[in-house]
């Protein structure tokens, strides 16, 4: 085990997969000469050369299409979006080409491509650069959507995503690149896609949280423990395919759920999780499923308003107390 940042864990995953499989290559804005806008690709150009680590012009739709074509002929591209906000420009290639090619070619073309980069809120980068887009991508059959919350998950899941034969949207959280955690040193360490992780065990209330909300939920759980409430924190890690079984198992034990997410509430992943819990565990619920989401407004620039728009420990604590009928 080594204690490293999520940024370093992602860098290790990329380095190991580039070394392991020569069909893997990286492409994106500033990934090569500049070592990546967030330094995730640091040192990779030097190590693997300009054929494997490729700078692109500011043309998201273009280089995403290039990636899909490369994947069709047998390569394993890893496309970096400087942030997922810019993936909006590439959605035609992601949704209409990458997600549907296997189906529309009658199974002839797998698209083993990873689209990765930071998503969600950052620090005062305002409305256009602070978006959580996972529910967009998770909506479409044919794509997998992965959102790690720890350094180990980031490394293990990115390696699995690169080895996966289907298109994967891999959303890192911009605020979390510097978060540190223990990561196994084994170069064969991977984490399977579609398997949730119980980040903390508890008996009274289940908090389903992903990405940025996992550390927030864990802090809330610590506070609640002082108040005599035992919380279980479940991190789905993969949004599609969603490991609803692990979530439902937890709900059957605790009978109460809070779903916490950084994204807007309408048509969100949290809405989907709440619905599936209702469908599968209705008779085990002692309270309505409570959702905590980001504010239903474009992200404000002002620091105080930005803080109010992102769920925090206090809101999760209050939600847990509400479903546990404590207030």
């Amino acid at each position, binding site marked *: 085990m080594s204690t490293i940042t999520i940024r370093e864990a992602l860098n290790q995953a990329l380095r190991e997969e580039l070394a392991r499989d020569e069909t893997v290559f990286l492409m994106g804005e500033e990934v090569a000469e500049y070592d990546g806008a967030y330094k995730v690709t640091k040192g990779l150009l030097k190590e693997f050369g300009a054929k494997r680590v490729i700078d692109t012009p500011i043309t998201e739709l273009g280089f995403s299409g290039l990636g899909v074509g490369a994947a069709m002929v047998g390569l394993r591209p890893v496309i970096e979006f400087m942030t997922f906000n810019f993936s909006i420009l590439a959605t035609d290639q992601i949704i209409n080409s990458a997600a549907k090619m296997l189906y529309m070619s009658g199974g002839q073309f797998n698209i083993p491509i990873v689209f990765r980069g930071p998503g969600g809120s950052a620090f005062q980068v305002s409305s256009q650069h602070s978006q959580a887009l996972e529910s967009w991508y998770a909506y479409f059959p044919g794509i997998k959507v992965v959102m790690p919350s720890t350094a180990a998950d980031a490394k293990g899941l990115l390696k699995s995503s690169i080895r996966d034969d289907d298109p994967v949207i891999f959303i890192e959280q911009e605020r979390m690149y510097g978060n540190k955690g223990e990561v196994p040193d084994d170069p064969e360490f991977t984490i399977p896609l579609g398997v949730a992780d119980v980040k903390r065990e508890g008996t009274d209330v289940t908090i389903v949280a992903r990405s940025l909300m996992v550390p927030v939920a864990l802090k809330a759980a610590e506070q609640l423990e002082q108040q005599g409430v035992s919380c279980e924190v479940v991190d789905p890690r993969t949004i599609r395919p969603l490991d609803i079984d692990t979530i439902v198992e937890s709900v059957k034990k605790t*009978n109460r759920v809070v779903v916490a997410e950084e994204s807007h509430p309408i048509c969100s992943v949290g809405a989907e999780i709440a619905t599936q819990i209702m469908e599968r565990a*209705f*008779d*085990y*619920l*002692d*309270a309505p499923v409570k959702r905590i989401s980001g504010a239903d407004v474009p992200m404000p620039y002002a620091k105080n308003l930005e803080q109010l728009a992102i769920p925090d420990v206090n809101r999760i604590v209050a939600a847990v107390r509400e479903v546990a*009928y404590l207030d």
Partner: protein
Amino acid sequence: MATKVIMPKLSPTMEEGQISRWLKKEGDKVSMGEPLAEIDTDKATMEMQALANGVLRKILINEGQSAPLGQTIAVIGEPNEDIASLVSEASAAPKQEQAQQQVQEQPAAPQQPQPQAKAAAASAQPSSRVDGRQPQAATADSGRLIVSPLAARMAAEAGIDLRSLQGSGPNGRIIKKDIEAAISQPKAAPAPQAFPRAVEPGRFPQAAASGYRDEPASEIRKVIAKRLVTSLGPVPHFFLTTEIEMDRAAEMRKGINALDPDLKISINDIIIKVAAAALIQHPEVNASFQEKFIRYYEHADVGVAVAIEDGLITPVVRSADQKSLSEIAAEVRELAERARSRKLKPEEYTGASFSISNLGMFGIDEFTAVINPPEGAILAVGAMSAKPVVRDNEIVIRQMMRVTMSCDHRVIDGATGAKFLQTFKKILENPLYLVV
């Protein structure tokens, strides 16, 4: 840490259990997994295991007493641990309930003090509480119960009437906590009443009602009652009767038992085997109506009604169509024995595809049986007796037996049932078909 031992759910239909025997005394050491008591459920006597290590400190429900699911029946703890709070929590509960009931009855109209008065009073005018919180009656203005899905299920399993509860959640929602509180308040077990003296000694009053005695219905009697009304009520029965010449079957039985007296094949075993063979030939009878679909079974799982001390139970011979007569005979004997000592496991008396009830040994000539849902049919078998019959225009004496099949008309029609019975009769009259 001291732990409560609660009445566990030991059968799929169990709502309360009776302590048949404590296997440990107060003060005995117990370890997890060790048998603690024998519990008489609605179907069988089952062993309950300890779920904690320590000493059996206190028995709260004595042998012969019943407790609903989830009620505390004992406390396990360390030898010198203070368990007073756990014990008083469990035993003080009924008093509290009574006190509450009295308070609540005051605002009620001067009705007869029926047990329902509590619920009526509760919904009419909730009493105020010392803690200042105003619990609203769960039956809001609309009269609709507001209850969490979990609480609704827990109440159904524990047999608690939701209308007798006050919800502590928002809008008076009944929540898990309320059901747990209700479960921990043990119901006063009604003591069996002695014969009321309707007649004073030495006098002979006119038109006096005859004496009677009330005994609490046993668990199994309650389940039988519940099951049977779910049958004759919603299941449209019709009945088909035929008379079967049993001479060859009886001869075959004699012949087999002469080969090996240990086999002890009975006529009923042959009937089971023949029914199974006929069921496989008529899959439309080996079926069950399941509201939205009809389930056809691959094998003939034949239920055999067995009379036991205070009721009946139907152990199942699985895949009887694939078993030999000697296997069926041995299995029926073993199942019936355990049925009588009430040691059957739930999976051994549920899930038959067809049943047979034989009252021949009681000299009954013919009768009709009630279908055990969701099975599609049941065969009622009467006694075998020598009768004069006409064969080739001559009166001869034959061993005759009458059977009546009750069919669920939703899945079996008259002609379908008749054809099955025809096959059954053909094989039973010529058991050689079994080996053809």
